[in-house]
């Protein structure tokens, strides 16, 4: 008989749908987002909002390059980051010896000396990348959900059921990527107070359709399909880019042995994850639960034994 908690139930490589108890589930579905061909058109953001009836995220200019939706949030389930950076890493070091990660944000204050330098700038780079919920193999949001609102689908994805969610918010700090969030507005919007995030268009893929963002993407930067096949495709794409001399190309979230057991939605990046605002080495926040449980059990047992011994000793 299958044990209730398996060796990799909370950490390590595993097929999440089978682990969740589905018998003969369909192949795990996910996204491969190839940022090397992203043109920053934001069609994914718009298609996602149209399909999922997500309210707007407010109308304010941020000054963070062309990013005015800032980050993934309850009202932005696909988010395109824009990173303006000089390509030569040498130019990214300031006097203090710190490294400019090219994080989205206003450029450093301008000075006349800086102005002079711009005329001989090295090649400039503008990175664009469409971020989304990672649909982790080990999803902490799901692990901590007390109501069962968050659940694992037969496609291995993680979905919130808004009619079950009680808005406790445990999932929000549990996510190692900061993806999930409770909707706070605008006024009159549906699901206010409820945890919100990408469903990998559960209501489309069950019908044999592609998620809205992948369908809208004009350059196939967002590819939807079987995770196993996407991982192969992604590996081949990295090799192709390396051969073309793009040595910084790397995969993010594609490794089943990483801290979340591999993401269902993974990425091809052209720089360090931090540059795109992604955590470099995310770990499922519930990874240590079994360990903690064993420790706690041992301690409890020891206490019990100690107490028993104490009583026994007294009798003796």
């Amino acid at each position, binding site marked *: 008989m299958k044990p209730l908690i398996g060796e990799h139930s909370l950490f390590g490589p595993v097929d999440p749908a089978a682990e969740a108890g589905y018998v003969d589930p369909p192949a795990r579905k996910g996204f491969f987002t190839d940022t090397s*061909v992203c*043109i*920053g*058109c934001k069609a994914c953001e*718009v298609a996602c909002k149209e399909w999922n009836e997500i309210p707007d995220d407010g109308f304010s*200019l941020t000054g963070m390059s062309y990013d*005015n939706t800032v980050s993934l949030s309850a009202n932005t389930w696909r988010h395109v980051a824009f990173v303006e950076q*000089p390509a030569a890493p040498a130019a990214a070091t300031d006097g203090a010896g710190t490294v400019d990660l090219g994080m989205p944000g206003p450029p450093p204050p301008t000075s006349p000396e800086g*102005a002079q330098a711009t005329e001989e700038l090295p090649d400039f780079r503008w990175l664009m990348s469409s971020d989304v919920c990672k649909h982790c193999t080990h999803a902490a949001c799901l692990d901590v959900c007390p109501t069962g609102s968050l659940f694992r689908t037969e496609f291995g994805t993680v979905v919130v059921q808004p009619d079950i969610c009680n808005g406790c918010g445990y999932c929000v700090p549990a996510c190692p990527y900061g993806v999930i969030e409770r909707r706070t507005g605008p006024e009159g919007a549906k699901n206010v107070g409820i945890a919100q995030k990408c469903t990998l268009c559960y209501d489309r893929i069950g019908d044999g359709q592609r998620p809205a963002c992948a369908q809208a993407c004009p350059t*196939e930067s967002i590819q939807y399909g079987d995770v196993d096949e996407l991982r192969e495709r992604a590996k081949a794409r990295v090799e192709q880019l390396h051969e073309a001399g793009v040595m910084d190309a790397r995969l993010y979230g594609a490794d089943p042995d990483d801290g979340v057991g591999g993401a269902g939605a993974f990425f091809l990046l052209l720089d360090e994850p931090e540059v795109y605002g992604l955590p470099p080495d995310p770990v499922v926040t519930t990874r240590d639960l079994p360990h903690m449980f064993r420790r706690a059990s041992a301690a409890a047992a020891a206490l019990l034994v100690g107490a028993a011994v104490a009583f026994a000793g007294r009798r003796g």
Partner: protein
Amino acid sequence: MIQGSNMAEAHPVGFQWVMEAKARGAKVIHVDPRFTRTSALADQFVPIRVGTDIAFLGGVINHVLQNELDFREYVVAYTNAATILSEDFQDTDDLDGLFSGFDPETRTYDPASWQYADAGQKQEGQGRQQHEEQRETASALQHETHGLNVEGDPPRDPTLQHPRCVYQVLKRHYSRYTPELVERVCGVSQEEFLEVCRAWTEASGRERTTALVYSVGWTQHSVGVQYIRTGAILQLLLGNMGRPGGGIMALRGHASIQGSTDIPTLFNILPGYLPMPNANQHESFQDWIDSVRHPGSKGFWDNAGAYAVNLLKAYWGDAATADNDFCFDYLPRITGDHGTYRTVMDMIDGKVKGYFLLGQNPAVGSAHGRAQRLGMANLDWLVVRDLFEIESATFWKNSPEVETGEIVPEECRTEVFLFPAASHVEKEGTFTQTQRMLQWRTKAVEPPGDARSELWFFYHLGRMVRERLADSTEERDRPLLDLAWDYPLHGEHDEPSAEAVLKEINGYEVATGRPLSSFTEMKDDGSTLGGCWIYTGVYADGVNQAARRKPGREQSYVAPEWGWAWPANRRNLYNRASADPDGNPWSERKRLVWWDPDKGENGEWTGDDVPDFERTKPPTYRPDEGQGGIAAIAGNDPFIMQGDGKGSLFVPQGLIDGPLPTHYEPVESPFRNVLYGQQANPTRKEYDRDDNPMNPSPPELHSDVYPFVFTTSRLTEHHTAGGMSRYLQYLAELQPEMFVEVSPALAAERGLQHGGWCHVVTSRAAIEGRVLVTERLRPLRVDGRTVHTVWLPYHWGSGGFVTGDSANDLLGIALDPNVLIQESKVGTCDVLPGRRPRGRAVLDLVASYKERSGVDVDPGTPIVTVGPDADVHDHRDPVMRKEDGDP
């Protein structure tokens, strides 16, 4: 090569093919004033000063010619490189920036001296008069498609050694466009420039082709047509025309702009590029036809009579007969310039009573927004059909002029009729895209409420006007009453059948109703009719060919069964050039169309695409002397719409501003033309009026009052004048405010804070926006000094979820003489920190700049700046003015 285009941002769906090509190893180069999302995906980005593309491309031409990198076999056989020019031709190097034949009085050329040698004697001066008229009516647009009129056989020197052959003339013309000069004029380093030259030439020739992409970054200049000509010369020299993977892709501004040129919404042409009859030139039907077909000359326009008869039959049906010249006299006549900007000036002057706006928002989207709004405020009535209540419908109550008091809502006399329009998913019909491909759209949902299609609106408007006039006996009402206005209607709202319209456009036999399969079936006796001869075949066999959607993977790579492309479903124009003169592919890698001697009776043209050549005319065919029409085109002349069958490196007729592209500065420029004494396009069309002032440029004084160069364009997130994006929250939130992009250096110079406010001033307007300091804009070294470029998106106005000032308010109106397009991609300006003044104070600010620059004294710019007739006059500075005792 992508130049003058921000393809990734303005054409993201088409850009997928660029990404596909890149994945297969294509190198993508982007030449642009600003680092855009297109640059981000390109292999090489080359920043260039706005308005200097002819200098840059002329440099590439010079590199090709000096190093003999042209595809010589192609050039000799397929272009007019070998053709010898008249002895009278003088080039811009002889005349300091002018060609021979210039008349400073009218600022037009007599093209007599530009002709091929022995081209028969043309009467002196006649050509000049024609040019004057052609400039008024943008008739170069007709020449573009009607081709070169060549009679006889002009002498050629296939060795290309004759000093007056086109090749040598071209070589001399561009000999001064060296890498050093490109660096000095364009601000492009020699290293970067030579890298582009290397990449372009290495990827061209027998085995390889290079595609060139441009958009309105090239067209919207006072020398816009010549920009594209420069690209055409280069692509011809490198053998990239008519071949797979080559060509010049003109990306159109939005869906079906190509369609609205083919079946035009322009004043000077009719469907299928037939010219609008001119009251002074085309007194009879035959005059009109002969002006297109040029009896005795060569080429495919010989059949123009049949195309015209079929169009008139489509308009007037049974009423059009041979006896009444098929109702030719019912066609309206043009008498001069009736272009959109002339019309706006006439509106301001009170000469226009009513105006229709359909899917257009000139209050935001057209150059010189203030003139647009003041013009509309002086109409009797205005019809606006749009998806939302756009600025062109609200200018009378909410606009910058209301703020300044120039328009008073209570007094504005224009009656605005706002009609809700059906969107593209709420109606059926075709889009024609840049490849001339028609794709049918089916209606996805019913339009909401009172929203209706354009087809519905015009059909029923016509019906009601005709009903109103039914009893009229006035002669002037006959054209309306005799119209064939009978389309099948369906549905609750009596929607006319779009397929029936498509069938009429395609053409059919009048007696049987059988749809025509090809325009060669069109008769000039009235037995067939067809609304647009180039579209004939789109309804062949009674099947809507535009609705075909066979996936690419189920057919050849040319995908002939996806949609339908004019003419005759050809996907690659002039594809005869993909084979060598003997009819064999230039290379196996690049084969497309070739001569198969074993096919048919005596051999046929065949291949992956529909051959753009008479199917059975063998490569060895040579016309007899004195032959005209199509028979005069030899079997090895691929450019069949040209009178000599050759691609034109040198254009003896049809262009008003000269036979060869020449670098002129933009009308507003901080720099003197370093190549010639002639500063800017001498033949440009200008409206020299107090309400259309131009900022001074060298050699005039005070250009330093407007020290920076600005350019405007689009963002992916918004659609042109914003009518389809600012009113939708999902798009509006993505770019929620008007902003102005400046380099860190300019921000430092002018004290602009990232995220703060700035305002931009020209002699037309002052507008404000938030500051975006970015290294994507880069100061350039030009002619020994630094020039800053300011970039503005032009999407905002007073309506929608997100509002802001309109960048097009900054522009004046100066037009290309060939097609009357406005120079809206470049101007000069000043930039100041903080928000602009409010109310009337903004007019004072603009006025103070005009006073400092002398524009208030003379709003125009000197146009001829060379020779004894130069009209350069120094704008008087304020100090001198005081001494003069001016008020």
